[in-house]
């Protein structure tokens, strides 16, 4: 299975200056690009699509990624041409969008136990940055100069990178023996310089931080803020709210928890919720109901950090988020969490691999033990499933971080378990040469990095 590059199907060169109404010194000479017919385009991308795994292909249990089914109707809702408007419309001409934004802010505030929400951040990491910038603005506003963000070693890489982007020094907190935050280590780590602790809960191996009340106390006592990384919120829906646990600021990964499609890597959206105390620092604009009249208006929070996206964020994604939450409602959301946790526990019970920590919730980190987790994963491809996240988090050796989500049924989980076990039990040679039944055999990633060829132009030069 091999599909030629578009460029290999024929390029055309246009003499730009021939037809241009502009003087030559303002234009390029020529433009060379593929010029396929529409039928060729349809075939090209149809074939490419068939060379790509997706949630609609089968199980996709990437731990920490929450790959759920993306309800088709949400696409139709987002495709409404009436919603396709320019962000610079005056408020009165865009009441429909403002209403949806307002309602979604409310939904998210309810779900997170937060007081105020911004929809602007275009991704989870952008939400993190927004949250940390809010924390920073809060401290500055109160005349505090704090330089550190504390992050557990098991946290997502984005947490570290975000803190650095915001100009903070990172203090890494080693995991306790039970895989959770060690209160003593935490107390040692926080202090006058602590701007915030960024915490994922359940954490990245699915463990709930049982001492969350004490953790919050330690951080708050030191004058720091508690940041909730929303990547694992799917485990808590209807069972616990970050706001009730003492978190001051959080982001939501709508493409995880609220089933908007991952789109091959994006777009997602990373709304941020905060407590009343932090609301004045939220990005601008926010949306509120107008006084008196029945309508909505944008406003700039008093001490706003400004903007984190040029306009209103990933609007089309936000529409799908609203539609998903409205579809599930209270009971559906709670059931999604319950079934996600049930599925993870059932699958862990069914596989031969050891799972060192527990009790976990929506995901677990099995260990491949003496095996190379990445090899086991490659071999799983041969059994018709997508493998879990591998070799992360590092607290579990040769980790296979697995998150089936609520959408798999028992038989699907059994298939997944079988793939795990077959791969895990396979001979070394089979593991090292896997996969063998996929469209492409194992791909040389080291070579790709050593000799980067990042465009068809680079291939042609070769």
């Amino acid at each position, binding site marked *: 299975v091999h599909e030629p*590059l578009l460029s290999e199907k024929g390029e055309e060169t246009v003499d730009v200056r021939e037809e241009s109404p502009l003087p030559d010194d303002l234009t390029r000479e020529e433009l060379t690009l593929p010029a396929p017919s529409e039928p060729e*385009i349809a075939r090209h991308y149809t074939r490419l699509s068939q060379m790509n795994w997706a949630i609609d292909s089968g199980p996709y249990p990437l731990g920490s990624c929450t790959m759920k089914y993306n309800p088709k109707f949400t696409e139709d809702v987002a495709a409404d041409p009436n919603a396709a408007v320019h962000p610079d419309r005056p408020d009165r001409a865009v009441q429909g969008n403002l209403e949806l934004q307002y309602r979604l802010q409310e939904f998210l505030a309810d779900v997170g136990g937060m007081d105020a929400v911004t929809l602007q951040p275009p991704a989870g990491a952008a939400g993190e940055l927004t949250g940390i910038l809010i924390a920073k603005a809060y401290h500055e506003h109160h005349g505090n100069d704090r330089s550190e963000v504390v992050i557990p070693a098991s946290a997502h890489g984005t947490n570290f990178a975000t803190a650095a982007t*915001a100009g903070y020094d990172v203090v890494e907190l080693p995991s306790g023996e039970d895989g959770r935050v060690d209160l003593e280590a935490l107390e040692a780590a926080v202090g006058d310089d602590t701007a915030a602790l960024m915490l994922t809960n359940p954490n990245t191996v699915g463990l709930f931080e049982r001492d969350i009340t004490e953790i919050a106390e330690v951080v708050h006592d030191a004058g720091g803020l508690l940041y909730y990384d929303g990547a694992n919120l799917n485990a808590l829906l209807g069972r616990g709210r970050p706001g009730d646990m003492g978190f001051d600021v959080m982001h939501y990964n709508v493409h995880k928890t609220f089933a908007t499609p991952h789109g091959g890597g994006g*777009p997602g959206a990373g709304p941020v919720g905060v407590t009343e105390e932090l609301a004045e620092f939220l990005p601008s604009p926010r949306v509120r109901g107008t006084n008196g009249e029945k309508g909505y208006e944008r406003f700039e929070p008093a001490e706003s950090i400004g903007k984190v996206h040029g306009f209103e964020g990933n609007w089309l994604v936000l529409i799908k988020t609203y539609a998903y939450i409205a579809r599930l409602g209270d009971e559906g959301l709670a059931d999604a969490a319950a079934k996600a946790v049930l599925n993870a526990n059932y699958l862990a019970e069914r596989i031969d691999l050891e799972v060192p920590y527990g009790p976990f919730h929506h995901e677990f980190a099995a260990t491949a033990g003496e095996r190379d987790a990445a090899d086991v994963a490659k071999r799983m491809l041969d059994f018709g499933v997508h493998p879990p996240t591998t070799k992360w988090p590092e607290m579990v050796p040769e980790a296979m971080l697995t998150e089936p989500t609520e959408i798999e049924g028992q038989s699907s989980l059994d298939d997944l378990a079988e793939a795990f076990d077959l791969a895990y039990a396979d001979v070394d040679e089979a593991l090292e040469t896997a996969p063998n039944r996929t469209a*492409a055999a194992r791909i040389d990633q080291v070579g790709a990095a050593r000799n980067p060829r990042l465009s068809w132009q680079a291939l042609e030069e070769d």
Partner: protein
Amino acid sequence: MSGSPYAPHTDAETAAMLETIGVESEESLFDIPEAVAFDGEFGIDARTERGIRDECARMFARNDDATEFLGRGHYSHYVPSVVDHLSDRAEFLTSYTQYQPEISQGFLQALFEYQSMLVELTGLPIANCSMYDAATALSEAATLADRVRSTTGDVVLVPGHLREGKRAVLENYCAGADLTVEAYSMDDGIADVDALADRVGDDVVMVYAENPTLRGCIEENLDAIGEVADDNDALFTLGSDVVALSVLEEPASAGVDVVVGEAGALGLPTSYGMGLGVFACREEHLRQVPGRLVGASEDAEGDRAFTLTLQTREQHIRKERATSNICTNQAWVALRAAIHAAWLGPDGLVDLANDCVRDAAALADRIDDLSGAAAPVHDRHHFREFTVRTDQPAAAVADDLEETGFLVHVVGEHLLQVCVTDHNAGRADDLVAAFGEVI
């Protein structure tokens, strides 16, 4: 319907699974201390699929049915049906980052092709496979400048005409890197190169210019700006968009180091500002690029294959020393832009771009003919948009136009901005007539 409509479990299945696990109930799987457990209700009523479709349709119908002549950073053109039909294929839309390239060749190749198109449009050899939007791409360019420039400086110079929101984003990223943002002055809609040359010195790490500028003017001094930046060892970053790049001077040949801007002008409908950030740069900055890169390689059979590459730049490996915190990006929008570009082909792209020049000039001319209005305000070539000076207060004129069903920008006390594309060119006559009525 009491549970999630997308969880397939029958009651019997749930019971069997609980038995396998060895617990009594789903509740007992949760390890949440009583004190922080939530036992309330959000108060969100579940709707049916149909109910939500109706509800949202009613909401969106509350947006005024107006014809937009709006631009200033958010542009779109007619998106052919084939873009929706192909990008909506579930294998693309419902996939995730290509961590397992052996079963992700389709999306990887599509992104590789997208990168290649950007390489052609910018003339730069490296393009990543997306940033969030133009504003965040610009911001990442600034932090890249901070990393790669040996100068001791901390100033990022930006055009005096810069969209406020874009500057606000830039400032948020710059603050973390201890950079400060400063504007250089404009000369009739484009960069004042002399003023710029006077300003640039050791303290400047990056010079940012736009082409076209925020006022819709085509920048005439790209080469000169490039020389000023180069002479002072400042990174030269250019903001543009994929349609403009199809005909305007090739950035690489003007000495540009990094191109940022919008590719969402292709593939995306008007979408309330949602975008697709471009990031292209010179070879020497390859290992400092933010975001994802797709590279060509081989599989064990010796066949060409694609894979994410140079991931050691990224947050999931390099953590706080990563080139950026970006993880989830705009990959699917990049796919859409690539399909749209393929559908247009170079001919179609150039035609579309030429229309952006011609239609703007023609509309400005006709508005200029009206008494009480002068356009374009700047004596420059324009792309898509231009400003209009009105004798009456601009805000009042815009309000009156809105009454007649047209939306334009107010950008000064007596200054409007008008953007014309294939979406609204068919209504240009009506806009001119409406202008005539209200001024």
